[in-house]
């Protein structure tokens, strides 16, 4: 039987990516934006795995990178959440639309 091909994976990851991108650009809550970023990262990781599986099964690089991505995403989430907590304590909300102190 025909399993899902490379194209399926790519389309799926592209969808994932676009959802993440859309979330990043539209969500006003920082936590929601962080979640969107995670989606984008996962889309990239999925691409790596798919390419590894279908095109370069012998090359270990494709398998190692997702692990890196997961590790980095975890570290990122830790740092970001810490910042968010500090930010929340400082201004009582996490709305990006209202945080514009860098306005020119």
């Amino acid at each position: 039987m025909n399993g899902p091909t490379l194209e399926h994976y790519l389309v799926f990851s592209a969808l994932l990516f676009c959802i993440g991108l859309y979330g990043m650009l539209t969500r006003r809550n920082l936590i929601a934006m962080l979640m969107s970023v995670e989606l984008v990262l996962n889309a990239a990781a999925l691409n790596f795995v798919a390419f590894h599986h279908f095109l370069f099964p012998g090359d270990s690089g494709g398998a190692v990178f997702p692990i890196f991505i997961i590790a980095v995403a975890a570290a990122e989430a830790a740092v970001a959440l810490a910042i968010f907590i500090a930010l929340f304590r400082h201004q009582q909300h996490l709305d990006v639309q209202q945080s514009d102190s860098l306005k020119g």
Partner: protein
Amino acid sequence: MTGHWFIDHLWLVPLFPFLGFLLVGLVIRPLGDRPSSTVAILAMVASAVVGWGAAFQYFTHHAGETLVPWQYEWLRFSPTLVGNMGVLVDDISMLLVLVVTTISLLIHVYSQGYMRGDPGYPRFFSFLNLFTFSMLGLVLACSVLQMFIFWELVGVSSFLLIGFYWAKPSAVSACKKAFIVTRFADLGFLLGLLMLSYYAKGLDFTFLTSPETVAKLARTTLPFLGVSALPLSAILIFCGAAGKSAMFPLHIWLPDAMEGPTPVSALIHAATMVVAGVYLVARMFPMFAASEPAILTVMSIGAFTALFAAVIAVTQFDIKRVLAYSTLSQLGYMMLALGVATLDKPLGFTASMFHLTTHACFKALLFLGAGSVIHAVHTNDMREMGGLRRKLPITHATFLIACLAIAGVPPFSGFFSKDEILAAAVENGHYFVFALALGVAGLTAFYMFRLYFMTFWSEPQDHEKYHHAHESPWSMTSVLIVLAVPTALLGLVPFGHYVHRGELEHHGINWLIAGPAILVGLAGIAVAFMLYFRPNGLPDRIAFAFSGIYRVIRDKFYIDELYLFVTHHVIFRYVSAPFNWFDRHCVDGLMDLTAQSALLSGRSLRRTVTGHLQTYLLWAWLGSAVLALVVWQMQAALGWALTFVGLGIIAGIFAWQWVLQLLNRSEPLKRIEKD
């Protein structure tokens, strides 16, 4: 080196007064009045001794030669063009050394009495020394450059001395005027010097006046105007001479210069500095004589000034101003004499130098006498004087001698020199000039005796002033007496024997020329006698009858007003002020505009920086999308196109914001007030 000590050490002549200036000005001034004047006078004595010694040695051993006993390279312009400083010895420089050292020494002595008690006494003597230094440097100059240098220095010492009473506003404007007018004339001199430096390729007088150089200059045609270099450079140099000698139309500074102390008027503005112009033309005589237009310019300007100034002198009431206009007129005489001389018949040259010498004596005497009068009555206005002969006997006697000399009454000195000028005019066929000079002689006699009668005869007009008048101290009257001697007798010296160009045949007195001159002079005296000997209403009635002309003459033909209008209104208001405006608003405005456009663009672009995280993200994504597109297509053209579209969008935003800003004027750019 000539082996004659005085001639070889002529450089000491200007050096002594210079040392005197430095010493008095820097060291001795705080010590008090007496030491200052003593040092200044000693410097002058030393200078006069060397000067007289050199002149004696020159006229006995080297008469007629031109020597340069000492010179050094002062400023090298290029390997071929060198500005030398040195000492040039010939008949006229020796003559001027005699005149300058002598008169200057006498006036130093006179000033001891005249300036006594003045708070600026030491300063006065240091300035007098400075002036004498500059004048002697000018007289002995061996190159045009040196002449120009000392020319400017006499100008500045004249400025300092006219402005000696610096707290007096009239003196301030007078000294400014004198300096700027002569400076303007010196521009001509400078341009002449530049022409000579280029076309003659040398600046030394011995080189410039040599026949070869003159011929070379005459052959050189200028790239523009089509004339040869000779007349143009000569006329330009004459501009400088005319400024310093106050020839029309640059004469306006001299009458105002009478604001200075009277000894200064005598020394600088009568006897020495103002003849520098005549001296310069005489110094470059071969150049002038070789060029018809130049020599004619000298003659006509001299003749016109002689008449013009004499006419004005008739209507003036300030004793020093009358003398000033008389000086103008006599300087015109000297110029005229030079103008009628030619290389073949150079009698005018001798006559001019002769008149320069006698004029220096009698005009110095007149000014010093006037100073003595002013010292006694404390006014310059002749209408407040009168009858002073009883109060000031010595002044009166010496003044009379000087008046007779200037009026050309034989056997006083002025008669001989004036006669020689008239003879020179006739000799070279300038009959019109001769007639004009004769007329001026009559006018001269008239206005001088008008002055004399109004001051010393007539009746005392202001009894208070008359009552307090007294004869001046010995230091002043002795100088008057000493000066009266050459004033009376100098005419008897066989002048042409010593100072001449070319071969001068013996020239006796031609009574056909001298006769009318004497008659005209006597007639002038007689008219003055009738009008002014006793107080009567006649002069006023005449003035009333011709009131229109009289007023024009009295107001000096409104030339001062014309100058004032041109300088103050035209140049100051319509040239200089617009330049100032242009600089602040256009040139500087352009710079500010550059700065402000940077500011404005920054201000517009800041709208793109919203502070919102997601805006940045959007830009970043759009940018990477564009990049991805370019890389994907690998087409440079597309890349450029997209870049331009992007830049266009940014520029559009920028422009839109700018328009908005212009429309709203919400936040006008703060412009800092400037000068």
